[in-house]
């Protein structure tokens, strides 16, 4: 599944990040890298992005980016 398909409260483990190297690097700095468990906290209003928590770091991600992050689903709390 894609990271963008997470509903608030659900968690998933990142498998692959299909983004340009620069963005990949930024996400790596924010703990979004393969093997890390990511939890969706909230969706932004007005069709905005997704708020996720990755190993203690909270970050906002646009849907377009989240849709390019392959994750292994349903690590529910």
């Amino acid at each position, binding site marked *: 599944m894609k990271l963008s*398909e997470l509903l608030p409260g659900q968690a998933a483990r990142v498998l692959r990040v299909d983004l340009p190297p620069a963005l990949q*690097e930024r996400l790596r700095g*924010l*703990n979004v890298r393969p093997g890390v468990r990511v939890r969706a906290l909230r969706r932004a209003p007005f069709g905005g992005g997704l*708020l996720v928590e990755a190993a*203690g770091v909270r970050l906002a991600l646009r*849907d377009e980016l989240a849709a390019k992050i392959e994750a292994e689903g349903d690590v529910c709390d």
Partner: protein
Amino acid sequence: MRLKGREKGAARGQKRVRLLLLGSPNCGKSTLFNALTGGHAKTGNWHGVTVGALAGAADLAGLPAEVVDLPGLYSLRTYSMEEGAASRAAQAGEYDLAVCVADALTLPRALALVRQVRVLGRPAALVVTMRDLLARRGGFLDAEGLSARLGMPVCALSAHRRADVARLRTVLRDACQRTSLVPAAVPPVSARAAPPVSVAVPPVSARAASVAAGEGERGGQAACVFPARPRAARAGGKERGVPAAAAGEDAPLGGEDAALLDGVYAPGRPPSALADKLFLDPKFALPLFAFILLSVFFLAFARGMPGMLAKEALEGLLAGAGDRLAAAAEGAGAPVAGEFLRSLCGSAGMLLSFLPQIALLELALALLEESGLLSALAFLTDGIFRRVGLTGRAAFSLLMGFGCTAAAILTTRGLENKPLQRRAIAILGYVSCGAKLPVYLAVVSAFFARPFIAVVALYAAGVLLAFAAALLLRRLIPGEETFVLELAHPQFPRLRPVLRSLLFSAKQFIIKVATVVTAFLILLWVLLSFDFSFGYVGVGSGESILARISRVLALLFWPMGAGKWQVALAALSGLVAKESVAATLALFYGDLTAAFTPASAVAFLVFILTCSPCASAIAAAAREMGARRALRLAAAQTGIAFLLSYLVYGLLCCGALAACVCALALPPLIFWYRKREHEKIHRPKKPNAQRLHRRSVRPRFLRPRPPAARPRRAGERRARRQKRRAVCGRRGRLLHDRARGAKALLRRRLSR
């Protein structure tokens, strides 16, 4: 402290050591810099406050040093523009000690950067900030233990405590002196075959650099003990086939970092998440933000509120002082000097009297910045900004724009790419800066019974114009936008940083009025009081040098009903600083009703709202996107401002005629729009194709992007026992409703 350090250094003839502050954004580098140097670097609780390098002299317990504050960066391989500057500074190697700064709450993440800095082969130290917050969360950090494991000095502190900062000075001094004793053990960067400067360039050179980094690690191993290193080097060698980012010293969180931090660090429990939840809840945070803005405006501008009262008191005080000065000069037998003093004090004093109101606005901005609400706001408003082709990060710049456009233009460096930055700079001109406030108030209070509502309407109109401009510019300056933003920890704003930034901005305002604006006013007075043959004609005479020049300019202002040359001159003076528009008007008119009719006053306000920002903002824009672009932008903004104000004046003066024209023009327009063909899109849905009718497939302002075709079918889902999930791009609302066997609008948060 700072001066003392400098003197000591000069006396001993020592070379000042150079320290670089490196660390992830919002970890407290600027706060540390201010604590060490007594400087005034801007601080705030959001990511990307510092956008340029800033150097200051510091005294490290007797050792004179130069501390360089750099923009935050997550890794030496860079992503955004300001990070690039920091990364280059680190890799150029022109420093004596790299001070890695990490905040105690997210220490594990910072270790990757520490490792990258070590690989550069230069002396380094680690400073862990926010120790008090860690203690409050029940976590702990054994600095000595970590220091022994990392093989570099580690100092944990809270930058707001003097004792901690004093300890840091000693630690840094010892680190500097120790490293200067053993320079041979660590080879300088320039001596190596493959300079790591090219690390940022993927993919081939990055691979070479990662190899070089591996060598560097082995070379540096002689200097200190670092248990996890050999493994990192091996990983770098083994994974050479995979993308560069995955190779080298940057192993996933877990194994290595956990081993390093085991027993010396515990993050503690996050405090009650109530503030977090409230700040990130759109139903609470957005109204809260609107309430804060409105109440600030109300307190500052409504009649009988503190802002207005303080302003009137200050105005009376300054006017009295000016009159006394002028009377003294006239009494001494110099009537011209008396007149000069009177007009100068009148204009400059009028400006200074706006200090309380500007201070109130700045206070609100400082509180927002310190509390961390700003980054929550960036997340919540990203949906809006996305529709006009910007990202949530632009919210920072727009809010800073209420303070000073030039400073806001600098913060746009934090945006993701150049086209995005250009768009943001272009729309910042429409966000009324604090300097436009005196102009608005001066004009508005002469013509409106309720100045508060008029000023709020002006500010709101500016923001709406900014959004409209962004929408337009998305077509003109195409560019991808991406949005990744770390959210700051919300905190109760601390008093000291808030007061500090408030006092600093008040000081800046007074200095600006006292220097730039006063100098300009003196020049103006001279040019206004003498004619071309340098005979004294007196201010307000139509024969003076400037009067003749600006009479030509006044032709441009004639269509907006303000054809007086004094008005044209005032508008022109806005190029120097927006405050001087109000000052110039005050120079000529005691009562502004003599200069404008109500309709032309509104048109003039619209002109001031939309015309190009002052020279310092244009200079800032030129630094960011090139002089030619900046000048072109300023010219375009001014041209549009003229057209808009003509339009407003026309509408106000002959509204009925304009309404008739609109009424005649609208039906054909609507007819033309309706006649356009529908586009038909087919997308696979279940076994049957679904046909959608749309005018155009492109996402627009009012309509989010169309739902993407789903690659997976119901059968597959059933096989995997998966539930149907929210559809991307539709706000996560469209979900499969089992009862109806179709899609249905459901609540955003599902009950379990």
